């Protein structure tokens, strides 16, 4: 066996952490979010991913306004076309422009992703924070409820909800949000619980801060980190559920396109015209990866152990 050393990145002798003395420039008042942004920017992949997501959002908003095609009109004179100058990504089995379909798919995925994420945050954080901050019986009751929600297979539940509520964008995002907030609730509770015990909350109480000031000024700013990180992973998660539903034929009603439906249809022509499935699959994969990288960057930025 050869030489080996164990990778360790601990401080040696716990010293070596003196203050860096370059704060003499007093004209710039530093803010917490400024510091976070500076740390986030250091991760180049995350930064590029963030720009990419901003670009995707812009595309989803502007795209449908300026595209020369729409997603409904079939063109039977132009079926299964390969990419060309007119149809950058070719056409599908109904002669519709693939680029148009993909951009609409993107729009729908983003709406469902952010919408479901918002629903999860609203329900999860409210329940988790209440349970964590007040504790006792309220905590017990709420957390048993969360336990049950957590144990249920959320995909099957959202599938059933879609069957009941109908198949449009809003019901789908609601169905996804309503069934997948349990993890967020646990996270929010754990965050609030751990921060509640930190000395600075006790210090705030000893200074006479009121409950609401404690929650909004001290607990929340320090608790949001993991919640935002989790959100940046849940948004692509919701997109996957949306596409998954479409894939098995329970997503947004056709002809409105969804990435899952595009993949499903494309899979039938994978031998003859693979671009029908490859383009949506690639855009989908890139979008989700971008969110994951942003989440990773956020996690590192919020990690207080990191110096800057």
């Amino acid at each position, binding site marked *: *066996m*050869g*030489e*080996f*050393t*164990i*990778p*360790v*990145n*601990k401080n*040696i*002798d*716990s*010293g*070596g952490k*003196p203050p860096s003395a370059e704060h003499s420039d007093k004209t710039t008042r530093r803010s917490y979010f400024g510091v976070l942004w500076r740390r986030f920017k250091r991760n180049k992949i995350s930064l590029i991913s963030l720009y990419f997501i901003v670009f995707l959002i812009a595309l989803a908003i502007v795209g449908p306004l300026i595209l020369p095609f729409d997603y409904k009109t079939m063109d039977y004179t132009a079926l299964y076309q390969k990419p060309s100058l007119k149809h950058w990504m070719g056409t599908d089995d109904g002669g519709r422009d693939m680029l148009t379909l993909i951009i609409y798919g993107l729009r729908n995925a983003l709406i469902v992703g952010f919408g479901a994420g918002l629903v999860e945050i609203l329900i999860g954080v409210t329940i988790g924070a209440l349970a964590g901050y007040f504790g006792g019986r309220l905590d017990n009751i709420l957390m048993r409820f969360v336990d049950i929600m957590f144990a249920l297979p959320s995909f099957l539940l959202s599938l059933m909800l879609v069957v009941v509520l109908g198949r449009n964008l809003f019901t789908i995002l609601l169905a996804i949000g309503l069934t997948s907030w349990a993890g967020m609730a646990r996270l929010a509770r754990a965050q609030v619980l751990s921060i509640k015990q930190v000395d600075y909350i006790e210090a705030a109480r000893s200074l006479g801060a009121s409950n609401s000031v404690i929650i909004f000024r001290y607990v929340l700013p320090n608790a949001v980190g993991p919640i935002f990180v989790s959100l940046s992973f849940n948004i692509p998660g919701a997109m996957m559920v949306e596409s998954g539903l479409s894939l098995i034929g329970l997503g947004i009603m056709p002809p409105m396109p969804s990435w899952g439906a595009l993949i499903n249809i494309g899979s039938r022509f994978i031998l003859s015209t693979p671009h029908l499935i490859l383009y949506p699959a690639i855009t989908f994969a890139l979008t989700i990866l971008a969110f994951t990288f942003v989440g990773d960057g956020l996690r590192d930025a919020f990690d207080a152990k990191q110096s800057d």
Partner: protein
Amino acid sequence: MTNILDVQALKTEFRRKNTLIRAVNNISFTIKKGSVLSIVGESGSGKSVTMHSVLRLIPSTGKIVAEKINFMGRDLMRLTEKEMRKIRGDQISMIFQDPMSSLNPTIKIGRQISEVLLWHHKANPKEAKERTIRMLHEVGIASPIERYNQYPFEFSGGMRQRVMIAMALIGEPRLLIADEPTTSLDVTVQAQILALIKKMQEQNKMSVVLITHNLAVATMMADEMIVMYAGQIVEQATKAEFLNRASHPYTVALLGSTPKLNMKERLQSIPGQPPDLKNINLEGCPFVDRCSAKMERCSREEPPAVQLSPTHRIRCWLYT
């Protein structure tokens, strides 16, 4: 040959991103057979890194350079990692600061101690178990047979440190390195653990290096003393010389800032902050900014080693 360990010109550096941290900066010292050496210093003084370097137990970002590290006639710098492993735990062993985190939480206490014998092929499993139980008894753990099969979380802090001592001593090492062994313990337990280490040292006639930030603990245990500051040895002396003629301004100030019972005068405090190893002034004396006796040349020229007696050496311009 009376020295068990002879370290000459040891340097340990860590590279982190673009900064070079000189944790140990060119130090030399020896330890006599069967004696206790205390290394005292504040955080960042390099006292732990020094002894970790001797055992080559530093993170992979670190680099050790030394003229020689002679242990019982062998130069540790020339040993391969494999040969070095045969020395660790067997001939040189270590006790660490925090007994709560130094034991593997999922492995039985007995197993963790007997591993030393098994890894070094010094006993078969049955003998190892018997010797472990005897060792547990020797370090003052009641009902060692039951304790053998328990897990760390079933032990109090003091008991865990006894387990660590048993683990360090079962291989019958010639040199024991105790790295802040009592820092995380209550004072009453600290006294017990120190007494145990001293007892085992005398019984096994081994040498001990005690690393500590507590001057009082250091003097109570030591035959010889080393004071470190910013990776350098600023003063080394026998215990008697240290107690009677501590000479380096840092040593004197450190003695003055240690709270004692029945103090009549105020604590002497050393101004400023502990050194920043990232930007030490390599030109002059590292203590110059905090020194009350500094002279003009102190910040320009590196202080020389001054021999106050054959066994008492300091690095300071005051005594030239």
